[in-house]
């Protein structure tokens, strides 16, 4: 049951450049999407979210884009910093009583100094 997919297991970028992490979903009932960052031996840390009624949300260096027709979202990090090196998870939510999160498999981002 892969309702949320992150097809790139890893990504390497140079410090100062843009990092683009991608996520695809299959369930059209999802109406809210989140990105979490995770370091080893720590829990996921919330980064940024977007509602399905929007196509872009920006917070500092982080921007999330949503293309509902393509069922695709992406996270842009500009400029990338070595401290951004972590696993990034895309998660989707279908509004309702529980709002459980459905996670993708994650993308390991390595930002090279």
């Amino acid at each position, binding site marked *: 049951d892969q309702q949320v997919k992150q097809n790139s297991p890893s990504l390497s970028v140079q410090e100062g450049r843009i990092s683009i992490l991608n996520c695809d979903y299959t369930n059209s009932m999802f*109406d*809210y999407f*989140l990105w*979490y960052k995770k370091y080893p*031996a*720590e*829990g*996921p*840390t*919330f980064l940024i*979210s977007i*509602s399905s009624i929007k196509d872009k949300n920006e917070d500092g260096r982080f921007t999330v884009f949503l293309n509902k027709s393509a069922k695709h979202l992406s996270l842009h990090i500009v400029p990338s910093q070595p401290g951004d090196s972590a696993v990034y*998870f895309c*998660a989707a*939510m279908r*509004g309702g*009583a*529980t*709002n*459980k*999160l*459905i*996670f*993708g*498999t*994650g993308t390991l981002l390595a930002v090279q100094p």
Partner: protein
Amino acid sequence: EPEVTQTPSHQVTQMGQEVILRCVPISNHLYFYWYRQILGQKVEFLVSFYNNEISEKSEIFDDQFSVERPDGSNFTLKIRSTKLEDSAMYFCASRATGGHDTQYFGPGTRLTVL
């Protein structure tokens, strides 16, 4: 900044033993969750809890699992008879309100079943 805490950070147990994983959610939060991540796999939803009862559970959350909020602060996950395949990181999360509100995760408990 308020945070979700979990204890222990690492639990080693023998197959068939009972374990209790503990979580202290953020104090004004009303919705509570357990997720798990088997090594190399995605984070999976186990159960959600609101108003002192389970609101949803996944197919993973069978009769061997139970959750409880024994007092005003703790939220526990009990596995009655552990299996080898229960070895995973277990994450607790909490959320303040209904609707599209962010879930905040604890650091996790690594459960190793031998």
